[in-house]
């Protein structure tokens, strides 16, 4: 594991940016750097799974990654190679609920793990989910909700998807403060996640099969 990868995993912000600038000054291939970043993200994900890292660490890693990509993106565009995405995830907080922090962390982790994510934001109606599903054709639908009113909003969304004949074409995960196994059954989803890492693991399991 290189020093650069290690510094990212250890969330040493200043060191990471300094090293990145050094690497670019030394004309290192941006795609190689991208591979190192992915390795670091895997390392961070592992620490989260092992309960060494928690939400603040994910948020801090998000900050570091944003800064990295601000510097790296122009260089990546120059190489003209676009990365092949693993699969597509449609994401949003359901109708009636405006909580977004958990959803944003899920988006970030899915993105960092090579998925194409379309985030519809908060308070998304069932109709809007259906409409965008038809356009975007995701492999996975991820519904977020923190308040207890989200249970029925999730149920309605999934019911509408069934009515449109789309249920068999997508795997559905749900997540949020009061969601549990009982709610998965109630709303007709396939699984729930307790954290952003769960979301990534579910997406990998469903798409890479």
């Amino acid at each position: 594991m290189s020093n650069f990868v290690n510094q990212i995993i250890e969330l040493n912000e200043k060191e990471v940016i300094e090293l990145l600038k050094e690497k670019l000054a030394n004309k290192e291939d941006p795609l190689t750097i991208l591979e190192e970043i992915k390795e670091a993200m895997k390392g961070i994900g592992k620490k989260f799974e092992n309960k060494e890292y928690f939400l603040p660490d994910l948020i801090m890693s998000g900050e570091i990654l944003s800064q990295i990509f601000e510097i790296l993106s122009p260089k990546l565009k120059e190489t003209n190679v676009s990365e092949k995405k693993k699969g597509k995830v449609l994401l949003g907080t359901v109708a009636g609920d405006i909580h977004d922090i958990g959803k944003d962390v899920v988006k970030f982790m899915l993105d960092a793990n090579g998925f194409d994510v379309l985030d519809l934001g908060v308070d998304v109606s069932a109709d809007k989910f259906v409409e965008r599903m038809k356009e975007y054709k995701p492999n996975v639908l991820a519904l977020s909700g923190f308040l207890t009113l989200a249970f029925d909003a999730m149920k309605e969304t999934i019911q509408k998807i069934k009515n449109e004949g789309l249920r068999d074409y997508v795997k559905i995960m749900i997540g949020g403060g009061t969601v549990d196994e009982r709610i998965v059954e109630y709303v007709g989803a396939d699984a729930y996640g307790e954290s952003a890492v769960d979301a990534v693991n579910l997406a990998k399991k469903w798409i890479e099969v």
Partner: protein
Amino acid sequence: MDAISLKEPDRVPLTPLAHFYPMIQKGMTKQEAMYDSSKSAQAAIEIYTELNVDQVISLAQINNGPLMDALGLKYFKWPGAADEKQKLSDNQPFQFAEGEYMKADEYEEFIADPTGFSIRKLIPRHFSMLSFFSEFPDVGSLTDGFLSVLTLPLFFSSPAAAKIIETIQEITKAYKNYIGDMIFYENQLKKMGFPLQFLNYTQAPFDLVSDFLRGMKGSMLDMYRKPEELKKLLDILTQPAINVTADIAQLFPRYRVVFIALHRGADGFMSLKQFEEFYWPTLTTVMDGLIKRGLIPMPHFQGKYDDRFPYLEEYAKRNKGKLIYRFGQSDIIRAKEMFGNYVCLRGNVPSSLLNVGTPLQIEEYMKNCIEKVSVGGGYLIDAVAGIPDEAKPENVKAMCDAAFKYGVYRK
């Protein structure tokens, strides 16, 4: 009080928290509930007395629309808000609106003059109708009579302050209406034999920073980027968090319980190391201060705190019979085993069970909790996040009935 001091009462007390549940049962929208405190009070009185709870929750739990409009409150969004930016639809409940009300580069300014910063920057950022406070004179001129004789009048005559009188009148009108209904509610219920669960309240210093100063993201990043400044800020906020309980404690000496809703210390929200460094010390200092004043802290451990049980155990052992631990999704039975002999436990029927479960499932859950947790006193019945707004009435009834069916202590 028997349950809190770990003696066996006649029966396990039934003390559920709730927000809009009673109003929804009476056919009101959430918007109506927030804008008609008189009708809300009526609805709550009817439903809580019907459920025969032992203690009721304050009307303050649903917040008041007209008061928040008059202040131009920014940190909630709610149904019927006058400001379009804060408005939600009629059946959405009020929801917290995250914001960075103190910027990362303002630590020094706050630390140097906490009250000045709170008046000149925090008030305008929290309440758009009070933006004129940004012109309030600073300590330099306030401590010099030759200056303040001019700077205070200058503040009052500034264009920003032109609408002070009108604004204050609107706020006062809304406030008096609301308080009037809250007092009626409390008196009426007391007459009928239903006291309030609590009236007094404070927060953990870290949650003050996370909720109202730096936002959740800001406060989390500060643990990495500004740890020393953050700790200084937490220290500054500690004594005030104790002091805020003094007024109510004096006016209402019979209401000794102090509710402390915990937001950011839960499992997963920070590491144990961060919990030990940033969250727990100032919280326990606040609770120590309350206990010293003869008050009963009731921290509400929202989410899961199972990884932190050793800390909860240690504190409970130092303060036997002096506090209540209200649990969210933690294992309350394990809690009873570890420290149930030292502290009263309150909780913890899951929201999912109350919303989508059956009365029989609820009865089984309650029977298990009551049998395991009420031994030796020290148990108050409640739900993880209070009774959810959308809970099925037959489930709520099952929860309440269980207290009478299984909760009577055989003497």
